[in-house]
Structures are given as structure tokens and as C-alpha cells.
């Protein structure tokens, strides 16, 4: 089901958490809310869930105005950053909770819980308490719990934030797989651009309570709408007043129009590419990424003076 966010604003005292944010999330899509901490992305997620009431604006779920609807009535699954497991319940009881409060028949609950435990690969852990699980297992339990009542929307707040790198990568893969299987409209919050790029099919970049740009990962990278997006979704250099990605820079052995004189400080081999650290004559620090072929063709060395020419730059007003 689709989510429509219309002109949502929210303040906490003097702090403007969200300022007139509008966003459309298609049914069945996987959307990332990407932004630095304090950008309002978690607040927006909590407003979609009904855990926070917006000062103004509307939330429309599947074409129905849900702005004034209690969280209980939104049919939204929410996975908290620290999973919020019910500590006094076993894994099975945790997952069954949403079905029990809906007074579903016992046999149906038992069957659905087993299905979900299989889906999140926690079969055999049903009798354990959350304290007896690892971080990754706890997160999968929280996911199973959120999915149990068959929500129309799944919301995840920094789902991989509290896990170590290896488990993170594993769970990312697994979340994408899960989304293919369950196909529930999913929105997750992250401050990690690689995570957003890898997992989602739509990214909404947020900054200081406002939406900067919405688009497919590739569109954001190639056609950033603002200075902030340019810097936030990828590496960016400022060369002679314009922003340019490291691999959109070329180095020339001789002066040229619109080229900046610079000295090579360091060159690092990254396999197929070479990362070149430069010191511009205007005092700027620039990083260029060349293919190894290009680098070797130029016959560059450390300490050499070269001219930097942006191949594709983006000037923002």
C-alpha cells in the first residue's frame, strides 16, 4: 500500500524537527530515509507510525487519511532501533503478541509464529528470552514480531545501526530478500549512504528537517539536486568553485582552459582505479580517481605538477 506524506511539520519546543515535508512512497517499494543525525528522518518515521503527532500536515495510508489515527489502527509494523524486545516474554511470545492482542485463534497463532520463525531463521529459538539472543537474532525477532499481524507498511528505524559490520552486511542482503518474499511497503531510516544505495529502490535525502531530494540511488548520485545531496550521497571535491566527483576529474600534464594547477601529494592503488591526492595552487585539497590505465598513460609521479580539469561538474546556486 502507498504512503502519502503531505506538508508535514513538527517542532519540539524551539527545535524544528520537520519543516513542510512531502513525500510519496509507492506500494511495495523499499524506500530509505537518508540523512545525518538530527535531520528529522526518525521523527518522520515515527509520524508515519502514529507514535508522534505532526503539528500540521497529513499522512495518507492507502488513500485513507490516517493523520488522526492511533498507532494501533494504522496496521503498520515498526522495528525500533534497539528492537524494543518484550524482555519478560520468550521469542515465541514476542512474535505472537500482535496476534494475541487481536484475539486470533490459538492454533492460527501457533502456526503463523512458526512460519515467521522459519522466515527469519530463528526456528529452534522460540523458547529463548531476548536476553539470550545475539544482536542480529534480536533484530530478526523484532522483524518477525512486526510482520506477524501482516502490516501493510513496515517501518525500520536505523535497522542495522547497532550491529557490527559483518552482521550488518548479512542483514542487508537478508532484508532485501525478505522484501522480495513478503513484498510489504518498506521504509527504513539510515545515516549510512552505502546502506541506502545498496538496499533501497528509492532514497529520500533529508537535511535539517527538510527533504532535499527524492529519487533512485543512481539518479541521486548522477544528478544531485543540491549541494548537500552531492556531498552526502557520494564523495565530492570543490574545484574552482564547482562540485565534482573524484572520478569526474581528469589530470593533464599541461595547462589548459578551466584547469587548476595542482601538485600530486599521494597516489593510492585501488585495484582497477588509482586514487590521487592533490594539493591545488589555490590551497584546496582535491581527490581524483583515475582508471589505472589513464594514470599509467600519463606517467604521473609524486610531487609532479599537473592540471585538474572537471569532466562533469555541477554548479549549485
Amino acid at each position: 500500500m502507498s504512503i502519502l506524506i503531505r506538508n508535514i511539520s513538527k517542532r519540539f519546543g524551539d527545535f524544528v524537527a520537520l519543516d513542510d515535508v512531502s513525500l510519496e512512497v509507492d506500494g511495495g517499494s523499499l524506500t530509505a530515509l537518508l540523512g545525518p543525525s538530527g535531520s528529522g528522518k526518525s521523527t518522520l518515521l515515527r509520524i508515519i507510525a502514529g507514535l508522534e503527532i505532526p503539528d500540521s500536515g497529513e499522512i495518507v495510508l492507502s488513500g485513507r487519511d490516517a493523520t488522526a489515527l492511533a498507532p494501533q489502527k494504522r496496521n503498520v509494523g515498526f522495528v525500533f532501533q534497539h528492537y524494543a524486545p518484550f524482555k519478560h516474554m520468550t521469542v515465541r511470545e514476542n512474535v505472537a503478541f500482535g496476534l494475541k492482542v487481536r484475539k486470533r485463534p490459538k492454533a492460527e497463532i501457533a502456526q503463523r509464529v512458526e512460519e515467521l520463525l522459519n522466515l527469519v531463521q530463528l526456528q529452534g529459538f522460540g523458547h529463548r528470552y531476548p536476553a539470550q539472543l545475539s544482536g542480529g537474532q534480536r533484530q530478526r525477532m523484532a522483524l518477525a514480531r512486526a510482520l506477524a499481524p501482516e502490516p501493510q507498511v513496515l517501518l525500520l528505524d536505523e535497522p542495522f545501526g547497532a550491529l557490527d559490520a559483518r552482521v550488518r552486511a548479512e542483514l542487508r542482503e537478508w532484508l532485501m530478500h525478505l522484501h522480495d518474499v513478503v513484498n510489504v511497503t518498506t521504509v527504513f531510516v539510515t545515516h549510512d549512504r552505502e546502506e541506502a544505495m545498496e538496499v533501497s529502490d528509492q532514497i529520500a535525502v533529508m537535511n535539517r528537517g527538510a527533504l532535499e531530494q527524492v529519487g533512485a540511488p543512481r539518479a541521486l548520485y548522477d544528478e544531485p539536486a543540491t549541494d548537500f545531496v552531492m556531498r552526502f550521497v557520494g564523495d565530492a571535491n570543490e574545484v574552482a568553485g564547482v562540485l565534482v566527483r573524484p572520478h569526474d576529474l581528469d589530470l593533464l600534464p599541461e595547462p589548459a582552459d578551466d584547469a587548476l594547477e595542482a601538485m600530486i601529494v599521494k597516489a593510492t592503488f585501488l585495484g582497477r582505479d588509482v586514487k590521487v591526492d592533490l594539493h591545488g595552487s589555490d590551497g584546496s585539497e582535491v581527490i581524483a580517481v583515475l582508471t589505472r590505465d589513464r594514470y599509467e598513460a600519463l606517467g604521473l609521479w609524486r610531487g609532479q605538477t599537473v592540471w585538474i580539469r572537471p569532466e562533469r561538474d555541477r554548479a549549485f546556486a
Partner: protein
Amino acid sequence: MHSARLDRLGLRFLALAYLAVILVGPLAIVFWRTFEHGLAPAWNALSQPDTIHAFKLTLIITAIAVPVNTVFGIVCALAIVRRSFPGKGLLNAFIDLPLALSPVVVGLSLFLLYGRQGWFGGWLDDHGIQVLFALPAMVIATIFVSLPFVAREVVPTLREIGDEQEQAAYTLGAGGWQTFWRITLPSIRWAVIYGVILTTARCLGEYGAVAVVSGRLQGQTETATLRVQERYESYDFAGAYAISIVLATLAILVLVALTVLRPKEGTS
């Protein structure tokens, strides 16, 4: 090293000696004096009808005050931790009032409210409702003095567990009541039990406020603690000690219960 060890032993000795003189000594003497002449005098004293009535009365008052203060304490703690409303700071401060206020003052203030010249006294009198020198005033006095314990135990526990579990329950479709019974209450259960035990101990031992409002009518408005005083003043030392022993034993049971429960708090 050597002197540090001596220091430690010295401190330990000081602490234990202090406890022995102040707490254990008097308690031991009460036990000794009670059973000085065997079990029979103590048993006789305890089986007097007025003494039995006094214990019954104490239990009735406790049985009313504890549940009332348990519900009130949980509601107050939830209001203090989970809600924000004007006057919250005041509520938080006022809950501790009974700890700071002498019970005698509590008793006197009830006099001012329910006495014949008091605010409610006239109305109550007109309608034939007796509050002072009867069970209602004794219950109110006991509720007042034992009010803070449940709330004071539950507040820090509620803060510690946070409200994420409750929010998770909401998103899973649980209403306010369901969330309270299935999530909040189980999470704070040890704090509640601990508070209930402390409240019970306070109710059983209450003397000052009840002494003022009860009128101390033997066989009618005399609680166990009042009965101890009355027996003592009538030179029936065996009776006074025997009742004291029962109260002291209850206190020790409370202590044991608290000691057994305390470590569980951390793990639940």
C-alpha cells in the same frame, strides 16, 4: 598493607557494634523477656479477646490500605514518568510528604478535617457517618503514612525500562489496557512487589497517626501497636512483649522477603 587491613576490620567492627547496640540488642531483649517464663504466659497474653481483636483490626486496616496505595502508587508513578502535565513537580514532591511529616501531625490534621468542628465533620455528623474514633479514620491515617513506598519503588524502574516496549505494543495493535497488563506491569512487577512489602510493613507498624484518630477503645479501635502501649501502661509486661514479638517476627519476615527479592530486580 597491614594497617589498611586493620582499618578495614576496625570499620567493620564499628558498623556491626553500632547495629548490635541500636537494632539487634533491643530486639533480642524483647524476645528474651517474652519467653523468660516459658511459652505459656506469652500464649495466654496473645489469646486474650482484646488482643486478638487488635491483631484483626491491624490486618483489616492493612488489607485495605495496601491495595489502595498499590493502585495509587502505580498510577502516580505512571503519571510522573510517562505523562507531562502542569503540577507534575508538585505531585512528585507531595508524594514524599508522608516520609517527612510526623505521623502525629497527620493524625491531628485528620482531626481538623473530620472532627466535629472540622471541614467535613459537620456534614458527616448530619448524615450519621462516623469517621473519627472508628475504622474509616484509622484506614485514612494508615493510607496517608504508607503512601509513598510503591510509587517511590516504581518510578526509577519505569524510567529505566523506558517507553519503547510500550510503543512497540501500540504499533502491534495493543490498546492502553492491554499494553499496561501485558507489557508495563510485568516489566515493573518486582518494583511493585517490593513496594507492596514495604507498604505492608509500614501499615502493620503504624502507631502515631492511628493513635491520635482512633480513640484507643479496647476491643474496638485498638490496633496491635496501640495494644502494646496499652498493655505496657497496665503493667502487663508479658502481654506487651508477646504482641511485640508477633510484630517483630512480621518485620523480620518482611526483611527476609526483601532480601530474597532484591537481587531478582536486576535480572528481570
